[in-house]
């Protein structure tokens, strides 16, 4: 509608104080800034790594030093590894299983984020990581009695699951995968190990929450989940950090194994602060008849490279990816997904939405690869992008690479702006322009909202509403 742009009004920028608080790093132990073999050995000693893990870290560092930087995505010039502290141990004796035993400032952090409350009300287990270490880990007794293992991965490396960890650790995402996978291999710390035995259905989600408190630090947690034959699990991860003027780095790694006829839903609400470089790698291998469902909301970070990948390795394996990305001022979020169809009769469904505002840059990047072994496979990709102003940017870069004729592949993409007719309609029903636009954007992101448990959908919609304040101006 002509004249609408001139009528836009200024609204205060968003209030992120719910996430933007921090505590002094009193008595926290830190390694030096930068990345050297000595620092990697120090981390390994801190962890009391078995010899194979120490060697693995050093080899990964070598790979990191010899791997070139990516040149096809957002610039990460502002990230200088010489200024990143790769290990920060908070001042706590050990990981606790009772919130009352967690140091006050750390407990307060997670209280303000609602984690203990969520655990009490709606979760089967929680892992809470603060900087480089897990500070709290607990699983409900009734879930434990089913044989479900949910523990910190570092204990698992030393205990009865040591062989299982060694057999799977960085096999789906090897250090050679890309430069920041190699970095992760060298300095990883913290994270969770989950094993669900055959036939077990975990009715209520498990959650890990990652909080980065220290300025100029990196978080490199490793999540390894194995859902055995016929089992079923919903795993949720959340993350946040206060905003600093220096760069923080997140180069975590998630490796998921879905065995025959098993199902795993992996949900993430990512809300890192806007000084964060989020270079995370997630990959899932799905066996015969298995299914993985990714639900992904990306709202934070200064720069993101994030493409959860599904490898459909067994007959009839399936993958679904539902995602929303919201790029606001100062953000360059390059997100999407990758699927490899490597067995017959596999199927994938990708449904994403992206929103750009206030100069934000949102890129949807995907690949669907269908090998010659994947006869009878199907894939459908739908990506929609919404531009909220003319200073932002939205790019869609989907790729399909097909090597057999017996397939059915469809793709659609759309880009546009909020319909002025829709805004007018809602305003005629009594909403302000800002409320109308926020409602439309929430509806646009509903593909993710409706896949999340209610509490997380509410959080996601709150994040959207916070981001939309200042959307007219």
């Amino acid at each position, binding site marked *: 509608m002509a004249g609408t742009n001139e009528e836009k009004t200024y609204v205060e920028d968003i209030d992120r104080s719910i996430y933007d608080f921090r505590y002094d790093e009193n008595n926290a132990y830190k390694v030096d800034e930068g990345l050297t073999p000595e620092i990697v050995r120090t981390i390994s000693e801190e962890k009391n790594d078995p010899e194979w893990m120490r060697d693995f870290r050093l080899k990964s560092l070598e790979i990191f030093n010899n791997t070139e930087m990516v040149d096809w995505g957002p610039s990460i010039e502002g990230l200088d590894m010489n200024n990143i502290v790769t290990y920060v141990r908070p001042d706590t004796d050990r990981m606790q299983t009772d919130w009352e035993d967690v140091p006050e400032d750390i407990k307060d952090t997670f209280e303000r984020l609602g984690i203990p409350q969520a655990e009490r009300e709606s979760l089967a287990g929680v892992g809470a990581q603060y900087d480089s270490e897990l500070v709290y880990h607990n699983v409900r007794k009734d879930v434990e009695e089913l044989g479900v293992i949910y523990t910190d991965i570092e204990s698992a490396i030393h205990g009865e699951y040591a062989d299982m960890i060694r057999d799977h650790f960085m096999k789906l995402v090897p250090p050679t995968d890309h430069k920041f996978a190699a970095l992760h291999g060298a300095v990883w710390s913290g994270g969770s190990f989950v094993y669900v035995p055959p036939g077990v259905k975990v009715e209520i989600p498990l959650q890990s929450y990652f909080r980065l408190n220290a300025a100029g630090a990196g978080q490199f947690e490793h999540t390894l989940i194995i859902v055995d034959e016929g089992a079923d699990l919903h795993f949720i991860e959340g993350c946040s950090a206060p905003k600093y003027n220096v760069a923080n780095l997140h180069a975590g790694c998630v490796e998921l194994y879905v065995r025959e006829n098993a199902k795993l839903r992996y949900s993430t609400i990512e809300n890192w602060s806007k000084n964060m470089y989020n270079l995370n790698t997630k990959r899932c291998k799905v066996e015969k008849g298995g299914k993985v469902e990714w639900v992904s909301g990306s709202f934070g970070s200064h720069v993101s490279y994030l493409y959860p990948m599904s490898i459909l390795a067994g007959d009839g394996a399936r993958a679904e990816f539902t995602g929303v990305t919201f790029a606001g001022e100062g953000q360059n979020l390059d997100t999407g997904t990758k699927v490899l169809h490597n067995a017959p009769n596999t199927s994938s469904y990708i449904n994403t939405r992206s929103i750009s505002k206030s100069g934000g840059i949102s890129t949807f990047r995907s690949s669907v690869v269908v090998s010659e072994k994947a006869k009878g496979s199907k894939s459908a990709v739908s990506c929609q992008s919404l531009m909220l102003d003319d200073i932002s940017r939205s*790019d*869609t870069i989907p790729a399909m690479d097909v090597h057999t004729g017996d397939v059915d592949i469809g793709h*659609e993409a759309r*880009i546009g702006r909020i319909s002025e007719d829709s805004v007018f309609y809602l305003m005629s029903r009594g909403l302000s322009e800002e409320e109308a636009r926020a409602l439309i954007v929430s509806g646009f992101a509903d593909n993710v909202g409706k896949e999340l448990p209610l509490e997380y959908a509410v959080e996601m919609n709150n994040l959207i509403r916070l981001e939309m304040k200042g959307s007219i101006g």
Partner: protein
Amino acid sequence: MSEQVLINKLPAPTFRWLKMNGSLVDEIPSDETDEVARFTKTGREQDEPLRIVVDFEGDKTNYPIEIEVEDESDGDIILNYLSEGDSVRRLQTAVELNIGKNSKVTMVQVQLLPKETELRNFIHANLADGASFELIQVVLSGGKTYIECTSELKGAKSRVHIEHAYLLRDSHDLDINYVANHYGKKTDSEMNVYGVMTEGTRKIFRGTIDFKKGCAGAVGNEKEDVLLLDDGVSNQTIPLILCAEEDVEGNHGASLGKLSEDVMFYLKSRGMSEEHIYQMMARARIEAVAALIKDEETRAIVIGGDRNIGKSN
């Protein structure tokens, strides 16, 4: 040894391991004997299209061509690639097309080349206010074919419309790169690609709609429909929509694979064999684009060609 150059580049690169960011080829050097062929069209009357002939039998490898269509003018251009020779040939045409205000150009290109031939077919079009460029391309045979068409929609309400059909057989390798750069307000681009692939063939289609800042009211649509008749194909598709402007509309759709079960069931129930169904459907894709060719002589090349399109086994 000649230098290597990257051609058919994606305007926004992606994961390197996909190997879709461009094609590395030996440079075809230009020299002073490569005279630029220049053509100018003025006015709206046209008795005959402009026919540009490319000689595949001679030694020339580089054909730079400049075509100027002045304001308020119309022009039809036919630039076919036809040869029955069997000598190994590599040849490049580079058309620089300037279309004036409110002018309309339709260019038709039909390719029927032996499988020993490598063809590089480059078009760069500059469109002024109200200008319109329609490109109809039909590729029926060849060895290695690289096609690039970049349209600069600088003028307000300028428009590019591409219709492309290809039939790949005998290890034909086809590499297409279409780019529509929207600069002007209310510009319009449309790219429709219909293809049929048989055993042993390879194709990559890169289609980019790039909405630059300031192109308010622009609309871009791209569509690809590929019928895969056999296994043993390599089909890559990467349709980009790049957007720096709020007030635009961009759409892309792609469909790759065999015929749907519903269609097969319906036609088989009418007494048709599977072989016949595939032939009919493949032909329909090619002829739908051929029907847009006004020149009878050129249309006959497509309709009258070798039509045994069936599956390899």
